[in-house]
């Protein structure tokens, strides 16, 4: 009995140590960024494609808060989910409550690996699983642009998560399951389709809303962009694979530019905010996203 107890204790201790080790913070390889410097003007385009302002501007800042020349990323917007309510942090250039005192490495590691400067995991309500696939140059450009934005002293609010989702270390296990460094849509793509894939999968993170999730909050394989319940509770985020979306590439590009559907209804709800971002991209980039959507594996929804 004593021996069994000792072996059990040993296994538990070793198991906990292994668990602690494998859920440790991820890091970036600095060699990927060697010799590169960030460009503020290019960074503004990356900022638009990545949609930072849509989540990180203040909730009462008004619908055009992300349209002003230098958006104030004061945070505070809340996002309901099956795990509780997440609140976006202040990522203005304020040195106390924002990212003003963070190094470039700190910011890059947060964006691309979901790890804060203190080594704690960030929750994947922040779509670092997408941004992790972005190019080092684009991310450096984004950092350079972020540093030009105004400082704001709005303090950060904690997330409202129930046990066990409030155990940050557990996100390390989630990352082991759901972090991916490769593209979702594989295969031979034309340059235009590949550019669209990069914009959609690495920056615009379309899959975060348009793909259904499993009980652990991971994106369901085989259902990429096939539509999902709206986390706000109302309505449904549509299937935009060729199995459901019949628009031409020109119509998709027009929608991303002006918000007009082929029937001249307009994008409403969260998509209106997305269109405000995609309207700042070039026509070529919007057509690239449209071309990519045409080669996403078609999924036909059998259940609503």
């Amino acid at each position, binding site marked *: 009995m004593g021996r069994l107890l000792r072996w059990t204790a040993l296994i538990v201790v070793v198991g906990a140590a292994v668990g602690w080790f494998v859920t440790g913070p991820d890091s970036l390889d600095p060699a990927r960024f060697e010799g590169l410097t960030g460009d503020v003007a290019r960074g503004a385009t990356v900022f638009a494609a990545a949609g930072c302002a849509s989540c990180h501007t203040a909730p009462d800042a008004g619908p055009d808060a992300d349209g002003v020349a230098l958006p104030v990323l004061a945070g505070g917007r809340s996002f309901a989910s099956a795990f509780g309510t997440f609140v976006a942090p202040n990522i203005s250039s304020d040195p106390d409550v924002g990212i003003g005192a963070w190094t470039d490495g700190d910011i890059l590691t947060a964006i691309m690996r979901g790890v804060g400067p203190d080594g704690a995991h960030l929750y994947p309500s922040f779509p670092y699983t997408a941004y992790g696939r972005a190019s080092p140059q684009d991310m450096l450009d984004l950092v350079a642009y972020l540093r030009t934005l105004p400082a704001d002293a709005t303090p950060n609010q904690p997330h409202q998560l129930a046990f066990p989702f409030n155990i940050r270390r557990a996100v390390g296990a989630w990352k082991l399951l759901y972090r991916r460094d490769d593209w979702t849509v594989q295969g031979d793509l034309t340059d235009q389709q590949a550019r669209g894939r990069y914009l959609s999968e690495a920056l615009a993170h379309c899959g975060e809303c348009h793909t259904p999730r499993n009980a652990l909050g991971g994106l369901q394989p085989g259902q990429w962009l096939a539509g999902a319940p709206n986390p706000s509770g109302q*309505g*449904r985020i549509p299937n935009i694979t060729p199995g459901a979306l*019949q628009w031409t590439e020109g119509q998709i590009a027009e929608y991303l530019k002006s918000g*007009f559907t082929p029937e*001249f209804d307009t994008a409403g709800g969260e998509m*209106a*905010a997305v269109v405000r971002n995609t309207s700042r991209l070039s026509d070529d980039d919007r057509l690239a996203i449209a071309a990519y959507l045409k080669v996403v594996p078609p999924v036909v929804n059998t259940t609503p």
Partner: protein
Amino acid sequence: MSQPMNITALSIGGALIASLALAQGDPLAGAVAARHAHMDLYAFNLGVLGGMAQGAVAYDAGAATAAADNLVALASINQTNYWLPGTESGAVEGSRTKVELWSAMDDLTARQAALVDAAAAMQAGAGTDLVSLQAAMGPLGSACGACHMAYRVPN
């Protein structure tokens, strides 16, 4: 039902409901039908401009200006009788208006003015050249989208 059918169905349905509603003296259903019809008229005129903007139809300065004139006229219509209290989503069949609208009528007025401005910019651009027309589509979409984002229940 395919997407283009929706507008037609909505128009026919809206007209039927409106006539029934008015015949039976139901001002609430009539208001909802009228504002849906108003949106259809926006879509109808936007379609002329959008066809040119997307290159599906040859650019015609006269036709584009006429469509833009219509948008300005529509955006300037007095809409008091469209937004009757008690016509929010859930209260009248087919209504997608959030009840919050009635606490924010000043904001609605401001958004209507923004749409007039965007339509006026299209008046200027539509008669100039295709590039100017295309550039004016974005602000129109933003003006329409901003109000929908704030006050329309999602699908």
